[in-house]
């Protein structure tokens, strides 16, 4: 059967349940939540997690969350989860894992820093270039407010915040980030993070080539992927070494 853009879209809708699996940036499930599609099956919208949340972080989804209406959500940019771990044991159906009791094992998302707007990255850029654009202020907020300071977020070279895989996705850094729009965002578990996508994806972004991946299948797709090579792409090592063809001082006589 010939494939075109329309059949691709149709297949995308039919191959996955179109009624669940919606993700949005900074919109998280309560801690201990099972995988999103199983969560939607198990959650009976009883609102007990909302009841016990002492900070009022968990909200009941409204109509603009489609069929998820009534299910619990944490909107990290408004009020984050403070990992008090009161909600997992009260869930009657196991949509929140009742055995989860330690906050460091929570994985409801992962924070990703936008290096183009983060004040520290901008500061560092100015410092290197030696030209001020008016961003010269240092901000340590995300590192300071993180419940796992120097584990989930650490400061590289004492200035650049970097998120590690110990990030629980609680979203406190998002709530407190002083920039607008937020320079740090939490991707809920299950939502694809472009910054962490594989090499194929990165190459696509890097070269901007329009791939035909969407319409290829099976062997054709494998062939297409095999064509990719990294020849000519500059490796992004931490300390780039510049190699010189010749050096004045060391010319062999």
């Amino acid at each position: 059967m010939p494939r075109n853009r329309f059949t691709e879209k149709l297949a995308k809708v039919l191959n996955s349940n179109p009624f669940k699996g919606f993700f949005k940036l900074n919109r998280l499930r309560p801690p201990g939540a099972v995988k999103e599609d199983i969560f939607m099956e198990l959650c009976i919208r009883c609102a007990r997690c909302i009841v016990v949340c002492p900070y009022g972080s968990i909200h009941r989804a409204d109509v603009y969350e489609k069929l998820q209406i009534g299910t619990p959500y944490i909107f990290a940019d408004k009020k984050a989860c403070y990992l008090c771990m009161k909600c997992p044991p009260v869930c009657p159906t196991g949509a929140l894992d009742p055995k989860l009791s330690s906050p460091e094992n929570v994985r409801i998302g992962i924070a990703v820093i936008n290096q183009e707007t983060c004040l520290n990255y901008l500061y560092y850029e100015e410092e290197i270039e030696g030209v001020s654009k008016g961003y010269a202020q240092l901000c340590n907020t995300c590192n300071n407010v993180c419940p796992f300071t120097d584990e989930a977020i650490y400061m590289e070279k004492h200035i650049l915040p970097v998120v590690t895989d110990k990030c629980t996705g609680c979203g406190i850094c998002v709530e407190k980030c002083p920039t607008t729009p937020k320079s740090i965002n939490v991707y809920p578990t299950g939502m694809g993070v472009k910054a962490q996508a594989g090499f194929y994806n990165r190459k696509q972004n890097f070269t901007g080539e329009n791939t035909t991946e969407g319409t290829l299948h099976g062997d054709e797709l494998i062939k297409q992927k095999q064509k990719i090579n990294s020849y000519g792409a500059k490796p992004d090592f931490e300390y780039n070494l510049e190699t010189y063809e010749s050096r004045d001082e060391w010319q062999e006589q």
Partner: protein
Amino acid sequence: MKIKTMRRTAQILTLAAIFIIPFMNVWELYFVKGTFYSMDIGNVAIADPLAVFQSMFASGKINAYMIASLIIPIALMIFFGRIWCSWFCPYYLFAEWVESLRRKLGFRDFRPEYTKTMPSRASRVRFLFLFLGLIVMGVIGVPVLNLISAPGIISSQALVVVKFGYVTFELAIVLVILFFELFYFRYWCRFFCPTGTFLSMFRWKRGMAVQKVRNDCSKCHSCIKSCPVIINPMTEGESLHCNNCGDCIDACQDNLNKQTIKFTFK
């Protein structure tokens, strides 16, 4: 004392409880917590059987907590009939208020006349609706029948109002359902309510039911005229429709002289 007085007291107390419980929870008293989908009293778990069944059915996962929370509502249902609907459900109270509002406004009587085929027709509609709802729920894989479960929505909206001071869209669903009560007599409870239909499947013949204990009554038919689910309480007390509200017992004039119709356990 009239049964209706007791019933109204229970209803008003339930209505008060759905606001008091979240208020207590805001003060971090978690002895009673939850909504009418699922509620904890101390360590005793109670849940809406349909809600739990849906989540079992959709996910294929069963845990001990789910089973434990089913015990009390189903035991109540088996021994006392569908008293949840008429004695506690907040939506039933609102529907009764809408009916009396209609009477006060002077609209003409819109109560359908009882005929013998009425209960079986109603049965067909409500079980078909529940069945279709469960099929839709199975296909989508989301417990969607909870979106039209009126008591759960009302109590969870009360919680949201007390805790956050706003309401969500689900309240509109209940208001729309309630609005049509003005035109169709108790249509939601009689034909559609999935929670009530699912509960009535657990009716046990030897549980509490209305029964005529005397053969010779004056045949005034006032019990039939007062029945909110349009059945004949004299013969169909064990019907799946009966929710043991006791309106027929209050309406019976013979009861003043000699016990004619009353709740019995067999």
